Each structure stands twice: as structure tokens, then as C-alpha cells.
């Protein structure tokens, strides 16, 4: 697997590169700004581009724009965005075109090496990875007649992991229960939230996120 890294902080860029290389992932290119990222992604066609949201020149949302460009130009390349702070709107903008091969993590998450590498692999494989804190902020939001209140604690746990982008398989590993039990919880969640549980993993992720964001 090969990645291109776009991050203007050299310290963090080198750190991420080293960490990925040690996990056996090839770092095909490193860039310090959005333009350089696009050049290197086009040249190397990596499995994943790991991008900082804020990059030169304006430090606003260059990473987000680069992500949209990459997804339009090279649908086979996953994008994993790193953000300094939690912003569900950014996550939702990113997911607006589908949840395949998309990730949004806090920069801080990089220090959990195993979790980070797993997220990179998931995005490279066409899955999604949403930061638990983004999910927590969306789930934690208070609303009137909140249907989330009707979920059991276990269902809520499952829903949060599902929103993060974990597959049923990964969720049962995490919670140490059978896949059968997870499927039962998922069905319960979808009926309580009034969602239709059709289709693949990605569609389920999107359905849950749109529900949370609404």
C-alpha cells in the first residue's frame, strides 16, 4: 500500500511518514502545500492521501478542497483528512459525495499508532473512518424528542462505532460479542431511528451520519 502525505508542519509530516513506514506502508511522496499534494497524488496515484485540512497559502480549508479534487479525478484514491479541531460540518462536507474511501480524524489521533494505521488501511480499502470525537459531538447534541434517548446503552455504543465507519466485523471485535448479536443491534437502531437498513456498509454509515447531523 502506498500513501502521499500533505502536511505543512515538517515535524508532524515526518512523524506520520515514519510511523506509516514502520507499519509497512510505503510513503510515495510528501508535500507541504495543496498544490504540491495534487502534483504528487497525480504522479504517484497512491492508495490513500493523508491531508491536513489547513495548509498554505491561506490555511483555511485547502486540504478539504484538495480532497474533493482527488475524489473527482482519481476515484480509486482514498482521502484521510487530519484536523486540529472537531468540525462535524467539515466531516459532512467530505462525506457529501459518499462514504467510500473517506476519513476524518483529529491530528491527535496519530499518536494512537495502531488505531491510526488501521484507519489508513480502512480508507485505502474503500471504507470510512470518522473520529470518535466528531461522532460523540454529533450524538451528544441535545434535541427535542430525541430518538437517540430510546436506544439501549449497547445500541448506542454500536451506533457510535458504526458512525465511525467500523464494519460489523470490526464492531464485534471491538465489543467482543458475536456478529449475530451486532446484526440484531443494528436492526434495532435502524428501526428506532426510522432509517431503512438496506444496502452496504457505506450506505449505513451515511444514513446514520445524516441522521445525526440533521
Amino acid at each position, binding site marked *: 500500500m502506498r500513501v502521499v502525505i500533505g502536511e505543512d508542519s515538517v515535524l508532524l509530516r515526518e512523524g506520520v511518514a515514519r510511523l506509516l513506514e514502520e507499519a509497512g506502508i510505503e510513503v510515495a511522496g510528501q508535500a507541504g502545500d495543496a498544490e504540491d499534494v495534487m502534483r504528487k497524488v497525480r504522479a504517484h496515484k497512491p492508495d490513500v492521501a493523508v491531508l491536513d485540512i*489547513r495548509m498554505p497559502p491561506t490555511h*483555511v*480549508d485547502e486540504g478539504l478542497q484538495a480532497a474533493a479534487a482527488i475524489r473527482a479525478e482519481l476515484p480509486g484514491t482514498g482521502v484521510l483528512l487530519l484536523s*486540529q*479541531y472537531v*468540525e*462535524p*460540518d467539515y466531516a459532512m462536507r467530505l462525506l457529501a459525495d459518499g462514504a467510500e474511501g473517506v476519513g476524518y480524524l*483529529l491530528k*491527535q489521533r496519530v*499518536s*494512537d499508532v495502531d488505531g491510526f494505521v488501521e484507519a489508513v488501511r480502512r480508507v485505502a480499502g474503500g471504507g470510512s473512518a470518522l473520529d470518535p470525537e466528531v461522532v460523540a*459531538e*454529533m450524538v*451528544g*447534541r*441535545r*434535541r*427535542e424528542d430525541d430518538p437517540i434517548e430510546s436506544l439501549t446503552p449497547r445500541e448506542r455504543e454500536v451506533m457510535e462505532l458504526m458512525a465511525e465507519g467500523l464494519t460489523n466485523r470490526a464492531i464485534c471485535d471491538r465489543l467482543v460479542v458475536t456478529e449475530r448479536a451486532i446484526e440484531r443491534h443494528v436492526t434495532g437502531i435502524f428501526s428506532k431511528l426510522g432509517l431503512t437498513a438496506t444496502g452496504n456498509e457505506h450506505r449505513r454509515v451515511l444514513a446514520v451520519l445524516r441522521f445525526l447531523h440533521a
Partner: protein
Amino acid sequence: MPAELHDPPVLTRAEHAVARALAETARSDEVYPRVLAAIGEALGWGLGAVWEAPAEPGGTMCCVATWHAAGVEAGEFEALSRATGFGPGQGLPGRVWSSGSPAWIAEVAEDPNFPRADAARRAGLHAAVCFPMSGPAGVLGAIEFFSGEHREPDALVTATMASIGAQVGQFVQRRRAEQAVLEAAELKRAMLDASLDCIVTMNHEGCVLDFNPAAERTFGYRAGDVIGREMAELIVPPSLRAMHRAGLARYLEGGDARVLDRRLEITGMRADGSEFPVELTITRIEVPGPPTFTGYIRDITDRKAAERELRESRARLVAAADEERRRIERDLHDGAQQRLVASALGLRLARAKMSADPAAALEALDQAEAELDGAATELRELARGIHPAILTDGGLEPALAMLARRSPVVAHVSVDLGGRLPPAVESAAYFVVSEALTNVARYAGAARVEVRAEMRDGSLALRVSDDGCGGADPAGGSGLRGLTDRLAALDGTLTVDSPPGGGTALRAEVPCG
């Protein structure tokens, strides 16, 4: 043509009649008909008119008065004259205006430069004479007369009429000058009356000569009650009277003019004895004789209060900024810094235990990692509290949405701004909503809170309203006070409406221009 027309007694009678008319009339618009009648009747003309030259260059002469002898039917001709304007050289009056000399036409219907010829023929007019009305400043107009008979020019009559024209011209010019003086005095009175500043005039003995309506309002006296009294005992506080009197005496002795024509800030006194700050400028009026002084006085109570409020709010802002820096320092010291130190200790411990006790080393590393993670989280939260990045990047809409998501009370946000606002406005608005939501969660006992942000007449209008118990102190706690100061620095305002049991609505307005 009457044979006696150029008789000296007849001419003298005409001159006398005009002199009497001038002596008995005060206003120029009243004198014209009498002059026309005096000349017309004395010299046997049937119809006369006065034409005034325009005040501005480029204008035309206007007929301002007409007269006709009893039995003369010339209504159409008079109306035409009054409706006609003549430029220099045009028609009979224009000709006289240009030349400054009298003109005689024996037969108007045959004259090449007489535009009113048709109407004159219908009125049965034949001969005409016109002479200038001139004063020291030049030709002011012209006076014309018509006869129903053919009349040949007569040098003596013409000369008499020229002399009468000069008399009338001088009279008119003098009246106009007097009128101008009168109008200037009226204008001055109107200015004194309409002035927002108090204008008080006193003589060299310090007695009030004039006290305008603004002074009446400000000091609480009627002009009629104060004129003639010593000004010092009326509007100067007792503590300053000696100084005032000494200053006036000093000026009168040696002309020490240190207080004249300068803006002074001093204390004034109302009729009820209350004192208040005023701004004062004294000028000496140049009149012959002993000097007269005019004081322009403005009540600056409001301005002084505003200045004090500004100073205090500035001080509060500085104090709040200091407090904020101390809080950040405390948070850094108690939080992230401690965690970083703990983490460094953990790393050192891990290195020490590495070979002897790998399990303990691993545990120390886990610990260090957890502390670093905690430090990163705390720094992120701290940075968000100082200035949320989402506000910088995305503006008010996503920033308020984030506040709503984090609000413990159900919050609905609607934002209609049509774009980004100046950074200082966005920032103030964000902290207003943040503080308001915190207060709602703490005190209001509300089930839901509504946040609205919209543009109204170039200002950002914010409204945070809840359905809680109301009864909040409108003066607000220190938090709201700080926000009021912050908004005031942007010319904005903050109001709190919180009737007991009726929920609380906080409104802020900030101009964005």
C-alpha cells in the same frame, strides 16, 4: 397735447407730489403706485408702470406696479406688461435700463422696438415716455407713462422726469438698505432663538443684555427675569464668582484677554442652584463705547458622562483581558504543563526500567502516552476558548452551530447573514451567544433556546431567547457586563428582557459598516 404740460408750475407741482408720496410712504412696494399717480395726474398721462431691474445679472426687468387714470380702459395692456420680462435693450424699459437715459416715443405703434405695440393699439395708446429710476448704485429700474394722444418729445418734461427718477431711485435704494439691515437683525434674532448653544451677552458691568431660549432652557431662567441683573450671581457658581468678577475687572483695566476666544471647560449653575459642566467661549463684540461680551455656553453633562463611561469601560476591558490572560496561564499551568512534566517523568522512568523491568517500563510508557494525549486535548479546548478556529475559517454560521451542538439545553440556530462579517463583529457575536447559552444552561431552567442572527439595516442583529423562568438581572452579571463593554467598543448594544416567568431574551446589535 395739453398746452400747459411744460409749464414750470405744472412741472413743479409734479415734483412736489412725488416728494410728498416719498415722504409719506415707508415701503418701496407701497411708494410705486403713489409716485405713478402723482406724476400721471400732474402731467396728464393716462397709464404708467414701474419696472424693476433684476437683482441677479442675466435676469429680465419685471413690471411691479401699474397705474391708470380714471376712465382709461387698458386692462389687457397692463396684464401683458405684468406678464412680460424685458432684457437689456429690449422694448421701452430695456432701452432705458441699458442707456440710463430717458426715452420718448411719439407713436408707439410705429416704433420698431416696442413689442407690446398690438396691445397698445387696442388700448388706444399713442405716445410714451420712459425714464430711469437710478440711485448711487446705478439703474434700479425704469418708470414709463403712456398717453392716448400723440405727443412730441419735450426736453423740459424729459429733464423733470429724469430728476424725479433719481429721487425715486434714491428712495428705493435707501429703503432696500434699511430692509437689509432689518432682515439681518431678524436673522440674528432667529439664529439666537434657534441656537442649541446658550448665548448670553453681558455689558462691561457684568449685567445680562441678552439671554437666548437655549440659555433659558439650560439655566432655568426666563430672559425677562435676568436681563439687567448681574450675570455672575445668576449662572456662575458661588465658588467661581470672585474669579469671574476679578477677570472682568482685569480685562477692563489692562485688556488681559486670556479667557477670550478660547474654549474653556468650566462649571455652570442653574436657577435651582445645581451645578453642571459647561463648555464656554467668550468673545468681545466690537461696538463703539464700553465693551460688550457674548458667551457661548454648552451643557456638556452628557458628554462628560459618556467620557467617564468610556474610560470605565476601557478600564474594564483591560481588566477583563488581564483576567483572561491569568486564566489561560492558570489553565496551562494546572493542565497541559503538568501533563507534559508527568509525561517526561514517565519517559525517564521507562528508560531507567527498560532493561531491569520491561513490564514496568511499558506501563510507564503507557502512562506517558496517556498524559500527552490529555495535554493535546486540553490545549485544543483552551485554544477553542481563546478563539475558535471554526469561527476564523467558517464564520458565524458554523461557529454558532457548534455552540448549539455543545449546548446542554436544546438549541435551534438560524443564521441569515449573506456572507462573512468583520472579524471583530463575528468574534463579539460568538462570545455573546456562547455566554448566553452558558447562562441559559445554568440559570434559566429552560427546555429550549432559540438563536437568531440576521442583518438589519447594516447591523448584525442577534437574539438568544429561551422558554425558561425569566427574572434575570437586566444589568447582568460580570459576564454580560464584559460583553456589553466588548460590544460598546464596536458601537454595539446589548439588552436583556427577562420578565419573571416569561423567559429571557437577550438582544445584541452590532453595526457592520
